[in-house]
C-alpha cells in the first residue's frame, strides 16, 4: 500500500445561484515514500483543487468532495479538522507558488521556523534557534543567523521559497505537496529549488507530489506522471514510458507546443488549436474533442474510459496516437 492513495477524487463547486463547477472529476493516483509523482496540465485543469482537497484546505461551504485520499491508512477526507491540523505540518506539508501567502507577514522568519520546531519536535530556546539557523543554511540561505530576524517581505521570492522549504523540512514530513513551487521564480533559482527538493526526497525518503504546468520539470524529477485535462486524468505513465510514447493527443499536443532548448533553429512548433474554453462536458464525450487532431465520431459518443496497457500506461482516449513517429 502506497503512503498516499488518492482514489476517485471529485470536487464540485456548487454555490447557490451559480452553475456547478466539476473541478476535479474522479482522479486517482498513488505516491509512495521516497518517490516523486507529477501532476501536470494547463491552468484550470484541477491541479490545485486536487491538492487542496487532499490537505482538507477547501472551503467547507459550497463544495462537495467525494472519493478517498488515504494517507498511511487514514482517509483524510473523513478525518476531523483537529486531527487534520496535527497531520498537516507534522506528516504532510505543502508549499505554494506564492510563498508569501503561507508566511506570516508580521512574524520574523526565525520565529516562524522555531515555532514549527517547538510544535512538532518539542525543541525550545537556544537549541531551536540553532536548529533553525542550521535549516536555513541547509536550504541555501546566506547569513542565516541574520536572516532569522528578518520579515518575509525582506526576502526575495527565491529566499522566501527556501524559507518555506526550511519549515517543511523542519518537521521532516513524510509527504510534501508542492504546487507550482518554482513558477514565480527565475530559472536559475528554479534549478536551485528543484535540486533542494530532490535532495529532500533522496535524503529523507519524503514522498513528493509535484504539481506543475511544466513538462520539462517533471521530465527531470518524477518517477511517474499524471496528465490532467478538464478535471480528469487523461494519461498516466512512468516518466520514461510517457516521453518515449505518448498516447493521448493532448499530451502529444502539449509536447509539440513547447519550444525545446535543444531543438535546431527553424523547427516548427505544433500547437493545439483552440483554447481550454472549447470544452465538452465529460458526460457527453471526450472533453478534449473540440481541440483534438485525432477526433473521430466515437469520441463524442460518451465519456472515454481510461485504458491500461501492460507498461502501467493509461490513456483516456478512443483514438489514441499509436505510432512513435507522430509522438516524437
Amino acid at each position: 500500500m502506497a503512503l498516499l492513495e488518492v482514489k476517485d477524487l471529485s470536487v464540485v463547486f456548487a454555490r447557490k445561484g451559480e452553475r456547478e463547477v466539476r473541478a476535479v472529476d474522479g482522479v486517482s493516483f498513488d505516491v509512495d515514500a521516497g518517490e516523486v509523482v507529477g501532476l501536470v496540465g494547463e491552468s484550470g485543469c484541477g491541479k490545485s483543487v486536487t491538492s487542496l482537497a487532499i490537505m482538507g484546505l477547501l472551503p467547507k461551504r459550497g463544495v462537495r468532495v467525494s472519493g478517498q485520499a488515504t494517507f498511511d491508512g487514514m482517509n483524510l477526507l473523513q478525518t476531523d479538522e483537529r486531527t487534520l491540523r496535527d497531520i498537516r505540518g507534522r506528516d504532510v506539508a505543502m508549499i505554494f507558488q506564492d510563498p508569501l501567502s503561507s508566511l506570516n507577514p508580521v512574524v520574523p522568519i526565525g520565529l516562524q521556523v522555531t515555532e514549527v520546531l517547538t510544535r512538532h519536535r518539542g525543541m525550545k530556546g537556544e537549541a531551536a534557534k540553532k536548529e533553525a539557523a542550521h535549516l536555513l543554511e541547509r536550504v541555501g540561505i546566506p547569513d542565516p543567523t541574520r536572516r532569522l530576524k528578518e520579515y518575509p517581505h525582506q526576502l526575495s521570492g527565491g529566499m522566501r521559497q527556501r524559507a518555506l522549504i526550511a519549515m517543511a523540512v523542519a518537521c521532516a514530513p513524510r509527504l510534501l505537496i508542492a504546487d507550482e513551487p518554482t513558477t514565480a521564480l527565475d530559472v536559475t533559482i528554479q534549478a536551485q529549488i528543484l535540486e533542494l527538493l530532490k535532495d529532500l526526497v533522496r535524503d529523507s525518503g519524503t514522498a513528493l507530489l509535484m504539481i506543475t504546468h511544466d513538462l520539462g520539470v517533471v521530465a527531470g524529477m518524477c518517477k511517474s506522471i499524471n496528465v490532467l485535462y478538464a478535471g480528469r486524468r487523461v494519461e498516466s505513465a512512468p516518466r520514461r514510458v510517457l516521453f518515449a510514447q505518448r498516447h493521448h493527443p493532448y499530451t502529444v499536443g502539449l509536447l509539440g507546443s513547447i519550444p525545446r532548448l535543444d531543438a535546431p533553429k527553424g523547427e516548427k512548433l505544433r500547437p493545439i488549436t483552440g483554447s481550454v474554453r472549447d470544452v465538452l462536458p465529460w458526460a457527453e464525450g471526450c472533453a478534449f474533442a473540440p481541440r483534438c487532431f485525432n477526433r473521430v465520431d466515437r469520441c463524442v459518443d460518451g465519456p472515454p474510459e481510461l485504458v491500461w496497457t501492460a507498461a502501467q500506461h493509461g490513456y483516456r482516449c478512443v483514438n489514441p496516437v499509436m505510432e512513435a513517429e507522430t509522438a516524437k
Partner: protein
Amino acid sequence: MTSLAKDGTPASPLVEVKDLKVHFPIKKGVIFDKVIGHVKAVDGVDLSIPRGRTYGLVGESGCGKSTLGRALLQLTPPTGGSVEFDGQELTKLAPGKLRSMRRRMQMIFQDPLSSLDPRQNVESILIEGLAAHGIGADRGERRKKVAETLDAVGLPRWALSRYPHEFSGGQRQRIGIARALVLGPDLIVADEPVSALDVSIQAQVINLLEELQDQLNLTYLVIAHDLAVVRHISDVVGVMYLGALVEEAPSDDIYAAPLHPYTRALMSAVPVPDPDVEDQRERILLAGDLPSPANPPKGCRFHTRCPWAQPTRCADERPVLRQITVEGLETGSDHRVACHWAEDIATGKLRPHEVKAELVHQEAETPTEVAPPSEPTSII
C-alpha cells in the same frame, strides 16, 4: 554585423543602439526629494537589429530587459547613448517627429488586458490608432484595413464588436498584436509576449509572430525570460545580466557554444522535456540571488556568483563585449562575450569552483519612492 537577410543579401540594420544607459534616481526625503543613488537598469548596451530579423533579449527578471525595450522606443528617456532607427537618431528627435515615427515602431506587452482599454471594443481600439496617425482616407478605408488585420492575426470578424475581457488570454494577445500591426510598423518590440499564456496557446502566438514576420518582413525585438522561447524565435540572442549584455550570438551558436559563465548557467537551468537529456545534463547551479542594480558589483557584475571567477581582474575590471578566438572551437565573428577568461573557460583550462551565496539586501532593491512603470494603454 555580417548577417544575411532571408533572401541571402546582406541585411542592413534597422536599429542601432549604442552605449544605451537608463539610470533611475532613487529619491529619499519628503520635502527635498534628495537623490541618494541610481538604479542602473540599463548600463551601456550596444546592439544592432538587422531588417527583417528577430533579436531576442533574454535574462532574469530585473536585469533591465523591459527598460531597454522602452528606452529603445523612447517611451523611457535614456540617460545616455544613442538609438538609431532607419538612419534617424531618435534620442534627439523633436516630439512631433517622434510621434509620427512611432507608427513604425510598435510594442506588444505581456499582459494584453492591462494595455487594452476595457471600455473600447476591438474595432475602436484598432481604428483609434489609424485615426491618430491619419492613416486611411475615410472610415470605410480604415474599416477595410482593420478587417484585413483581423484576418492576419486569426481573429473572427465578430470580434470587432466585443470588448477585451470577453476574450481568452491567447485571443487578447492577438488583439494586442493586431493593434500594433494595423499601423503597418517596421519594428515590433514584444515584451514577454507569451509568458502569461498556457503552453498550447504560447505556441499559437509564437507561430503567428513568425508567420507575420515572413509575410510582412517585420523586424522584431523579442524580450523574454525563457531562453527556450527566445532561442526558438530569434536569429540573434543577447543575454543580459544586471543592465548589460554578457553575450551575443546567432541563436544556434549560443546553444552550441555558450561562452559566458552566466549563459552556461542559464542554459543548464532550463528544463528540457526529455528524461534522457535531463538525466545526463550537468547543472551549473548558481549561488544566491541577483545583486541589486542600485549597487551592482564592481568589475564583472557576475563575479559574485560566477563559478569561474578568478582572483585577478574579475572583481575590479569591467569586461567588454568582444569576439574571441579559440583553437578547435568555431566561433563566428558575430559571437561576442564579455568575460575576461572566456578563452580559458572555453578550452576547459579553467574549471568551475564552489561559490558561497552572498547576502543580497532586498530593502535596497526596489526604491519605494519610484512608482513602477505602468504599461501605457496606448503608445500611439
